[in-house]
């Protein structure tokens, strides 16, 4: 865990690798949450209507969906670009092939510009916060990428970390709000699932001596399964993964700004990446439950 190789360069490889790996998990879980948001709202509406024996209408199925298809698509693309950015940092720390990295940085710049254009065409209040963040953040990240394209690799990684941290964290903040809202809506749906399962059991129970014991057992199993899903769902909020990513990003910046990091500085930096890695694992473990 040497902080500096004999060349005097700071060795970012291991912690940046951990940052890249944990970021990939958090970004994938965030994508899963966002992709499932409209389905969650549709299913929630259908379950509620069925549970309370109310009419279902096609127009209401449309109305209940929080984000437009374009809104979700552009957010998923923004997350992909964020993942590509952390991958670039990883390659900067691990590679001595400047031409390949400059090419990737240039491609990412183009992707950012294209996505920025797409995001600006989004309408609706639900996209206002995201549009504002992209409008502010993407040009700054674009300038950081310009450093990779035009200057030396050593300059690139420090510039990326020092100048890129704030815009990346601003983008994380914008996405985090959407993801936390998705979590709360999913939480409400789980509540409906729970009451539906309990009601099915109790409708049979209310038949008293005429209640079917086999059905009661089956309904009890359904309640048990729903409770297990709720317990797993509540284990990790997706926003926690993004918050941990932001904190790790700040730790990376703090470390990069040290002119001569000590062993203690390096130790704190590694600990911060470890904490992020653990938070990412929790988020990753919990995400499959939203598909229930």
């Amino acid at each position, binding site marked *: 865990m040497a902080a500096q190789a004999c060349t005097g360069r700071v060795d970012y490889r291991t912690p940046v690798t951990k940052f890249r790996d944990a970021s990939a998990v958090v970004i994938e879980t965030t994508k899963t949450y966002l992709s499932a948001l409209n389905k969650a*709202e549709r299913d*929630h509406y259908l379950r*509620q209507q069925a*549970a*309370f024996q109310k009419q279902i209408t096609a127009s209401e199925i449309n109305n*209940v969906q*929080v*984000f437009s298809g374009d809104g979700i698509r552009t957010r998923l693309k923004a997350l992909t670009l964020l993942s590509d950015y952390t991958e670039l940092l990883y390659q900067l720390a691990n590679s001595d092939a400047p031409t390949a990295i400059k090419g990737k940085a240039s491609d990412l710049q183009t992707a950012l510009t294209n996505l920025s254009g797409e995001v600006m065409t989004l309408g*609706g*209040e*639900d996209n*206002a*916060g995201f549009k504002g963040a992209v409008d502010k953040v993407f040009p700054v990240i674009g300038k950081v990428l310009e450093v990779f394209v035009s200057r030396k690799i050593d300059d690139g990684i420090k510039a990326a970390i020092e100048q890129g941290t704030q815009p990346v964290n601003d983008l994380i903040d914008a996405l985090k*709000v959407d993801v*936390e*809202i998705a979590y*709360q*809506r999913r*939480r*409400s749906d789980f*509540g*409906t699932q*729970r*009451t539906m399962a*309990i*009601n099915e059991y*109790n*409708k049979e*129970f*209310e038949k008293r001596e005429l209640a079917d014991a086999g059905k009661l057992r089956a309904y009890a199993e359904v309640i048990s399964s729903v409770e297990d899903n709720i317990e797993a769902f509540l284990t990790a909020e997706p926003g926690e993964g993004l918050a941990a990513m932001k904190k790790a990003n700040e730790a990376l910046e703090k470390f990069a700004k040290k002119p001569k990091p000590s062993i203690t500085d390096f130790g704190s930096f590694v600990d911060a990446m470890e904490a992020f890695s653990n938070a990412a694992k929790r988020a990753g473990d919990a995400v499959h439950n939203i598909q229930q």
Partner: protein
Amino acid sequence: MTKLELIRLIGDVLTEIDTRIGDLLPSDPRQRELQDLRLLLDDRQRQLSGKVFDDNTQAFQAAVEQLQGINKDIKRTIADIKNLQDTISNVNRFLVSLTSLMSTAGGIV
């Protein structure tokens, strides 16, 4: 309190109501009453999710403080099945205050 924190607060109230609904038998008319309130509250949360409004205004913060106060009343009464009518009244008050906040703050509803 931010819009997101308000959405979380509504989520907490929904969870409280769900527990009470689950304690009642389907034949109990009070279950239906609570379910109807639950439907409306859930819809308000969903509407809030997709809207933008200024959560920094004094009016917003005052309305949110009122909602937090009503939530404390809900928590106080919800544990006692004998106090169910009080719980239903408090949830109603919460819904009315929330609807008022959303109409004032963002022209929603």
